[in-house]
């Protein structure tokens, strides 16, 4: 890797990323009135997030069991509408504890 290839690479990454991010904000500034497109845009975040979370969350930690534990804690706490930070920290703690237990037993 030369300095030139790194700088050009970084520039290309920046350009493509920024264009994809800015396209909607800069080009679609008017209120969309079509009710189907409106509904689509209302629903899309939940779908995108669900696709990104499942099943990846189960495999996001060192072992499947800690992944399951963290997922369960996140599901239960968010069902009872706890805040983002609480859910996140509790889930991290659950993973950590389960992995310590696994290490202890093994």
């Amino acid at each position: 890797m030369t300095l030139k290839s790194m700088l050009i690479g970084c520039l290309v990454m920046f350009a493509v990323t920024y264009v994809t991010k800015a396209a909607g904000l800069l080009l679609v500034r008017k209120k969309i009135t079509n009710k189907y497109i409106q509904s689509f845009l209302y629903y899309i975040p939940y779908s995108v997030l669900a696709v990104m979370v499942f099943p990846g969350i189960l495999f996001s930690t060192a072992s499947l069991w800690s992944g399951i534990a963290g997922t369960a804690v996140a599901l239960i706490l968010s069902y009872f509408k706890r805040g983002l930070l609480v859910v996140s920290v509790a889930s991290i703690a659950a993973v950590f504890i389960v992995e310590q237990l696994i290490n202890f037993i093994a």
Partner: protein
Amino acid sequence: MKFTNGLKDGLPIALGYISVAFAYAISAINAGFPFWFPILVSVTNFTGTGQFAGTNLIAAGAGILELITTMLVINIRYTLMSVSLSQKMGGGFPLWQRALLSFGVTDENYAVAIRSPKKLTFGYLTGLMCCSFCGWVGGTALGAALGDVLPRSLMSALGIALFAMFVAIIIPAARDDKKVLLLVAMSTAASCLFYFTPVLNRLSDGWVIIICSVVCTAIVAFLFPKKENGTDAGGGQNAGDAGGNAPPEGDSAEEVQK
């Protein structure tokens, strides 16, 4: 909805970002890059998956065309989010503010901004994005400077942070709205289909996210459109007369729900 509200809402994101960015920096250093490179990429790109993939490609000496294509496929979901965010923001944002805020569109910032019950302001959004950006760049700098210092168990536990945050966004909404619940169930099923099926799982994450979310959302939006004020517009009975592109969507609906 001031700058400080944004900072506060950005805190859980920053927390999750520190660990992801930390891991990114370490992988870049291990691939042979000097310590400033991952930091430069984090400062200019501010995107997770795209940075990992792009950095690996540069390390492998890939061509510019390959780099552009890969980045485009992974990041095209941002355009969807950007359109959706633009609608939520409404008028009142001059072009320069939009150009600036565009940089801060990430999965997490978008997810938090879009679920905000109040009207979005420039102050709130910059607070949110500044906070998470600091976590992102800070995490990268720490990883680049310190290397593999955090215990493996802690890194592993932090790996779930952002996923858990997303769960906290979708589950309450799914609990309150049956249509969102249906959408989440369909999207999860579709995602699992692509994750576990032998040939389909070779498709990159970028494509999987776009295909699954667009198809599932189109089906739900088509069956249960919302009116301007957010209430239902009558549901399935008027579904038949609206869409020339209904058949392919109908087919995939059956696929997904199997």
